[in-house]
């Protein structure tokens, strides 16, 4: 009977499923027993209770009497904020560094190679802790703040940059979420093309009205140095600045290697072919080289971007409250560890799935259409 492939497959699978169920049952029963022994209730109703935890800095407005779920949203916003900035800056810098590494100029190529090797071979957490320890050593006191770019100051107390203030309250954020859902719905329906023409603009208009109702105050405010302090602008604490700078240095190394590989993957023959068709250099770059390069670099870039989201958890090493740090505080404060773990798992999976589905969508758009 065992030599029959079908019976054997049923037996193997049956054993596996039984083992998984037995292990899960063991986990669940011990967990419940442990929680009962410690008198910890299970359920998500704690989310609406006032959290009374302290979040040292946040992109959204947060007060310690806000409920737990808002603290979670605030932590998530911090993570999304760090990730988005690091992804943006490391993409731009990585493009420059990757192309410079291919330069025939040994000085330029060598310097960029040193950057790439350091970034690729040091643990990001050591890089962050090292940079954080440098902060007070290298940068001048506020009075002598460096001013590398107009409107950007760097000193012991962190960076000061032009502030783009987006003032959103809790209700505002909910309305924006609703409006975005509507807009996405409208876009999806419009593409499916099964709709009377007026419905799409109506939904989009509802989205715009929603955004207007959300009462977002949007302003750009340049910092002015007053001799002892800064007026206006937004101050990035040393913690936040360290994470942004450190993760950008780290990720740039990887993006540069991907870009370099992408450029090398497009053969010289493609340029020659473009020239023989009478295309200008700019047109060859835009129509021939870049489309082929994108095909090579989009999938690995996507996994780097997901890595940025995951690496943003290292913020904990310098004491910046990212999502994981906030969740950690919430779990130790509320003792709702099981629920906390599920929220952590759900949030990171959702973030990473969003990123990769966006990349996959883009990848499909630029993929070779084979007929």
């Amino acid at each position, binding site marked *: 009977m065992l030599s029959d492939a079908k019976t054997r*497959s049923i037996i*193997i*699978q049956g054993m*596996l*499923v039984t083992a998984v169920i037995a292990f899960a049952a*063991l*986990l669940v029963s*011990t*967990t419940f027993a*442990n*929680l009962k022994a410690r008198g910890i209730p299970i359920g998500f109703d704690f989310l609406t209770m006032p959290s009374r935890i302290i979040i040292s800095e946040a992109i959204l407005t947060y007060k310690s009497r806000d409920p737990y779920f808002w603290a979670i949203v605030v932590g998530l916003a911090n993570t999304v904020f760090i990730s988005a900035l690091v992804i943006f800056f490391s993409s731009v810098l990585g493009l420059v560094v990757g192309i410079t*590494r291919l*330069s*025939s*100029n*040994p*000085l*330029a*190529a*060598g*310097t960029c*190679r040193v950057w790439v*090797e350091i970034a*690729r*071979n*040091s*643990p*990001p*957490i*050591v*890089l962050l*802790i*090292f940079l954080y*320890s*440098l902060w007070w*050593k290298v940068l001048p006191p506020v009075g002598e703040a460096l001013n590398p770019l107009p409107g950007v100051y760097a000193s012991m107390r962190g960076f000061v940059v032009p502030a783009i203030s987006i003032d959103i309250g809790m209700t505002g954020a909910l309305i924006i979420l609703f409006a975005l859902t509507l807009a996405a719905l409208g876009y999806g329906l419009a593409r499916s093309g099964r709709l009377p023409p007026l419905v799409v603009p109506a939904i989009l208009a509802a989205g715009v009205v929603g955004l207007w109702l959300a009462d977002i105050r949007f302003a750009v405010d340049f910092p002015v140095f007053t001799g002892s302090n800064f007026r206006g602008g937004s101050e990035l604490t040393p913690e936040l600045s360290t994470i942004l700078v450190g993760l950008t240095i780290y990720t740039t190394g990887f993006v540069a*290697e*991907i870009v*370099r*590989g992408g450029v*090398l993957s497009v053969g*010289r023959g493609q340029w020659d072919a473009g020239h023989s068709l009478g295309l200008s250099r700019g047109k060859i770059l835009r129509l021939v080289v870049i489309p082929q390069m994108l095909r090579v670099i989009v999938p690995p870039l996507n996994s780097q971007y997901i890595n940025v*989201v*995951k*690496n943003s*958890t*290292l913020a*904990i*090493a310098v004491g910046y409250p990212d999502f*994981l740090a906030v969740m*950690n505080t919430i779990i130790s404060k509320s003792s709702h*560890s*099981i629920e906390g*773990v599920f929220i*952590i*798992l759900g949030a*990171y*999976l959702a973030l*990473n*799935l969003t990123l990769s589905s966006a990349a996959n969508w883009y990848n499909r758009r630029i993929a070779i259409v084979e007929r």
Partner: protein
Amino acid sequence: MAMSLPMSSEATPGHFRFIGLRRLAKLLFGTPLNAALTLLFGALLVVTVPPMLRWLVIDAVLFDPDPNACRAATGACWSFIYAKSGQLLFGIYPFDERWRPAIVCLLILALLGWSVRPASWTSRLLALWVAAFALIFWLMGGGFGLAEVPTSSWGGLPVTLILTVVAIGIAFPVGILLALARRSTLPAVRVGAVVLIESVRGLPLLSILFVASIMMPLFLPEALLPDKFVRALVALTIFAAAYLAEVIRGGLQAIPNGQYEAAAALGLPFWHTQRLVILPQAIRVVIPALANTIIVMIKNTSLVLVIGLFDLISSGKAALADPEWPSPAAETFLFIGAIFFALSFSFARFADFLERRGPAAH
């Protein structure tokens, strides 16, 4: 990511070779773009390198055992690293027993050095590693004539090395099993592997370490609960296994069906087919990607500090707490970073060597 793409036939950048001065001048200033790049990077180096050198070497205190020399100096305080090297490398391991972790570190590094020679890749090597690790755990933990040292007192470089080597060593076979399971024709096996691999890959390692260190005591009965060191090791192993599984699956996909058919025609059973025909070819295809995953794992070991294991970074932080010294944090973390850099950079060069050797070699 190591790129296995053909390099252009022009001068490969970044490789310093002996070239004539005239050639160098042409490379640096030959075209307007190159001249501009030279000026830009030259200015950058002139601004940054001299102050760095002054701090690192010229104004630095090298061996002076007096902490006050560091307070007076404007440069780096290397004498701190020198004076505290024992604590930095071995953490809170009992002072009189430090020779044990020292031997362990040398043993692991020597074995790693021995293992990179293709000539030593035999089944004996595996037996050697297993024997070495029995010795290592005896030296670290004690018993049988040595004073017992609980894992909570282990620290520094040996912790980093043991975690890295053991996690990767166990994760590799587990990753192969997971990759095979994901390509299995049995739906329950396949679904199980997909769920495990994808959820581990979707999560930051730090969150998995948190679950292992803080949550596991809730999930498991007291009797089954391993200590903190083993829990971190399990978390690292699962994490590495999921990533290695995906790399190996890529290699499995590259094997044409004819190989399976040929093995079936020879009458080989499933495990023989995998072990003798499929896996040797599949793994050889993905050596560069495997090497990258392993480098990531070497670097990832540094995260265990967040859950309170005494790895290199934690022992650095502990050494810095000494009030006698002026707390030279930058120097300490530079030293620790250099150790990690040396480990992963040499592994990267080893991977380059494997890649150049090509898939034809056995």
